[in-house]
């Protein structure tokens, strides 16, 4: 049995309480959400927080709701709910694609959207999803809240824009007309982290792609939005050639490293291949044909 170093533990009762605790206890305190990233790190003693602030009682952060022009998801919403949500499946099928290949049911029952984004693991799947969907993050502190776009949220591997006295409370996803999205992942084994994964989102204007975004995981220091892809997807007619072109752009704009999951060349190839596949499927979905 792997055992963590000693720590103190408190259950927060409200968001304000949680943030106040965090402000008081400082850098040595950590929120614990689903615990499926934090606890393994603590057991391996890669993380040794002195205080854990448990935010699992903050029921106000468990929700998926539809507003006029966006979907809002509370930071404590679990993988399981993201997988099961019909609302998300309807607007953003990329979620269900991704959730089906994230970890296993035991992890999905506990792990949260907020925890996933805040962990900022370069191979994290939901960050790629949020990048593709142009999400923005609501970050709260005792003095108020601020909204940070997904592209500014991750500032390095395992580092986010959330300050020591702040908390991620909500993630917002803009609704666009005639949209489609999809997720593709290659893993060595079910429940394994991505060798590479790619999420694509497009919105159509008639037969043309009005715009689109691609987010990749495990191809660099952070899950990344591939900027040049958005340019290539600006008002174009979908075609196999386009998917290939966009795939090539994705491959040219990532910087994977050789490790046990795969070689740099293979991962670069996957960036192309998975971008192509997810884009093809996203377009088909936007056009009302499931591919």
């Amino acid at each position, binding site marked *: *049995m792997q055992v963590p170093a000693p720590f103190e533990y408190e259950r927060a009762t409200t968001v304000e309480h949680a943030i106040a605790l965090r402000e008081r206890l400082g850098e040595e305190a950590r929120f614990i959400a689903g615990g499926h990233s934090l606890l393994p790190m603590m057991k391996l003693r890669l993380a040794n927080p002195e205080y854990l602030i448990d935010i699992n009682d903050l029921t106000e952060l468990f929700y998926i709701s539809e507003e006029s022009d966006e979907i809002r998801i509370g930071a404590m919403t679990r993988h399981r709910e993201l997988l099961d949500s019909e609302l998300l499946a309807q607007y953003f099928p990329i979620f269900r694609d991704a959730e089906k290949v994230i970890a296993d049911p035991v992890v999905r029952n506990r792990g949260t959207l907020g925890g996933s984004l805040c962990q900022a693991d370069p191979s994290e799947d939901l960050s790629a999803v949020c990048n593709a969907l142009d999400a923005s993050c609501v970050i709260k502190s005792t003095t108020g809240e601020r909204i940070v776009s997904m592209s500014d949220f991750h500032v390095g591997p395992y580092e986010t824009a959330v300050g020591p006295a702040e908390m991620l409370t909500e993630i917002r996803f803009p609704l666009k007309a005639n949209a489609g999205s999809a997720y593709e992942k290659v893993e060595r084994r079910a429940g394994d982290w991505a060798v590479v994964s790619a999420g694509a989102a497009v919105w159509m204007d008639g037969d043309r792609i009005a715009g689109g975004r691609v987010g990749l995981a495990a191809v660099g220091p952070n899950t990344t939005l591939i900027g040049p892809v958005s340019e290539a997807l600006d008002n174009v007619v979908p075609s196999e050639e386009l998917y290939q072109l966009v795939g090539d752009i994705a491959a040219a704009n990532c910087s994977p490293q050789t490790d046990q999951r795969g070689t740099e060349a293979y991962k670069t190839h996957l960036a192309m291949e998975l971008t192509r596949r997810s884009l093809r499927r996203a377009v088909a979905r936007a056009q009302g044909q499931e591919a």
Partner: protein
Amino acid sequence: MTTTEAPPEQERPIGFGRLLRKEDPRLIRGMGNFVDDIQLPGMLHLAILRSPMAHARIVSIDTSAAQAHPKVVAVITGADLAEQGLAWMPTLSNDTQAVLATDKVRFQHQEVAFVVAEDRYSARDALELIVVDYERLDPVIDVRTALNPDTPVIRDDLEGKTDNHIFDWETGDEAATAEVFNNADVVVSEEIIYPRVHPAPMETCGCVADVERVSGKLTLWCTTQAPHAHRTVYALVAGLPEHKIRIIAPDIGGGFGNKVPIYPGYVCAIVASLVIGKPVKWVEDRTENLVSTGFARDYIMKAEIAATKEGKILAVRSDVLADHGAFNGVAAPVKYPAGFFGVFTGSYDLEAAHAKMTAVYTNKAPGGVAYACSFRITEAVYMVERLVDCLAYELEMDPVELRLKNLLKPEQFPYTTKTGWVYDSGNYEPTMRKAMEIAGYEELRREQAEKRERGELMGIGVSFFTEAVGAGPRKDMDILGLGMADGCELRIHPTGKAVVRLSVKSQGQGHETTFAQIVAEEIGIPPEDIEVLEGDTDNTPFGLGTYGSRSTPVSGAAAALVTRKVRDKAQIIASGMLEVSVADLEWNKGSFSVKGDPSKSVTIQEIAMRAHGAGDLPEGIEGGLEAQICYNPSNLTYPFGAYICVVDIDPGTAVVKVRRFIAVDDCGTQINPMIIEGQVHGGLTDGVGMALMQMISFDEDGNCLAGSLMDYLIPTALETPDWETDSTVTPSPHHPIGAKGIGESATVGSPPAIVNAVVDALKPYGVRHADMPLTPSRVWEAMQGNHTPPI
């Protein structure tokens, strides 16, 4: 086909047949009793400090801060052990291994010091308070450089050691083999690597040591597959008198060879209990298990096969470089430093064969255990089955056709191989044909041809293996001087219930059921009336334990023979009860009756009561109904099987999907077909792991990169198809019930079938060989024409 249903209650066999496992109600309900479940009053907890470096001199160790921790009872270093002469211990292959490092560390995560504390958390916390000053030395990680003259010497503790060489070994006739190769039409060579893998049992290793203060008796609850062998080794090494050592192996959560060696942690716990006078528990964590305990494989095999252009295989030879890590901890009979690698001649009729091997030290964890491989047979079978496929590739022949052409014929058995192994029995072709029939082999090939036209990648892989299990004849097999024979004792109680005691130890294989069925078959007492006892050296007869698929071949034989001995006595008692001569009695599985008059009979239960009762017994017969024997096998047994694997590969991502897997096994007489299927399912799953995803790898500094199950992957149900299992039955001629052993067949036979299937799928890319593990990346690299050795 696979059926895992149990037969209905009323059809429960008294003897062989499908029967639910007796141990499962306990195990499935979480009511087993494992080492970590043992709680003793006043028990302390031990944690081990391990080296962060692969090769370094220990300059100093400061334990003062750890000693000062309020809950710490003791902190012990290698220097402390050295004072007692306990810093080093022998390995299973007569090398020495540091219990705690004294001079230098020789692999990352080597044991350096230990802490004993009041609870597990404090013990672990105190490790962080020990300060060790290391002086880094260049590590030897690439096995191919281990023997270079300028390479650092790892084992400078061994007197006069000036290099990293452990042993050279060879088998077969080198000159005769060279002659055949020189004259052959076709010679195919390939470097075939079996990477380092780990048994990774669900339960990690651990123990509770309790030295009683007054009597000095040590009781050690331990995760051991070989409790008796361990007891003797402790007696010989630690100087504890053997009758003052009791080893108890309670429920064991998987072993696969990982629980054969004696690990430093066990010795540390014993020393701690001895010194402190309280029970001490040590249970390693997952990382410790993966990075420091017995690995398996790690062979680089330069292999060659010679044949006629018509596809008659003539000879096989190989030159192997074996990485044994920092201490030679190979678990194999002493005369077999390369285990049973000699069966690399496979299932084929050859004219000549030769193999040589060089084993070396590297700065990696020690071991080399029989991980579900019957002593290196996995490597041997993998090599020859890959080679045969390489030959088929060159000859443009169907790999099944090539095998059928060369398989040994039934009339050739017993068959002596060119390396001197005597295969006991075999009837190979029907087994191969049965597998083909289940697979629909011809149809699969047609489908493959169509798919290839369309650019789809489908592969069909075949392997035919022969194993050598049940070590072994004591005339030439021993471990540290202990003959590989096993005892068995059977007692029939007055009411006709029984207890059978064995020297082996189940790690989940179902011994409580299998051995009860063997006794039941021989004496007609229902299996549920027979208690099977194992794993307590005070209460079971001596023997060498469970590994290398030896439980059924050796102890299964012992169980049958001891029961026959009891039955012979029962017959004499029955003759008295029925007042006829012994020769006039007939045995009807459970009762003796008078020949020609079935109405006159006595049941075994009645005989048991008479044996313990007050009435007269025939002259010269003592009361009681029990016996004990020690079985020394006259030969190994040779199970075999034909496996066919079908894979689909996504050409865009190179992801391999195992679509079908057909396993036809022949393990001789079957005791419980359900247990056999279970063993095969497990082994096949294991094979998927090795073939597609597993490797214990290291970076160039010797850091182990497989320290968690996130890095060292265990396959799940999603990576495995619905196994299609079947069998043929060719009994062993020398085993009392004809059984051959099944524990490891599937782990041995499946990796080559899977790799052969993947390579077959990649034929359009001109791929003839690719090394395991065939992760998507490695498959993709092979498709690009890049050969990427896994080491």
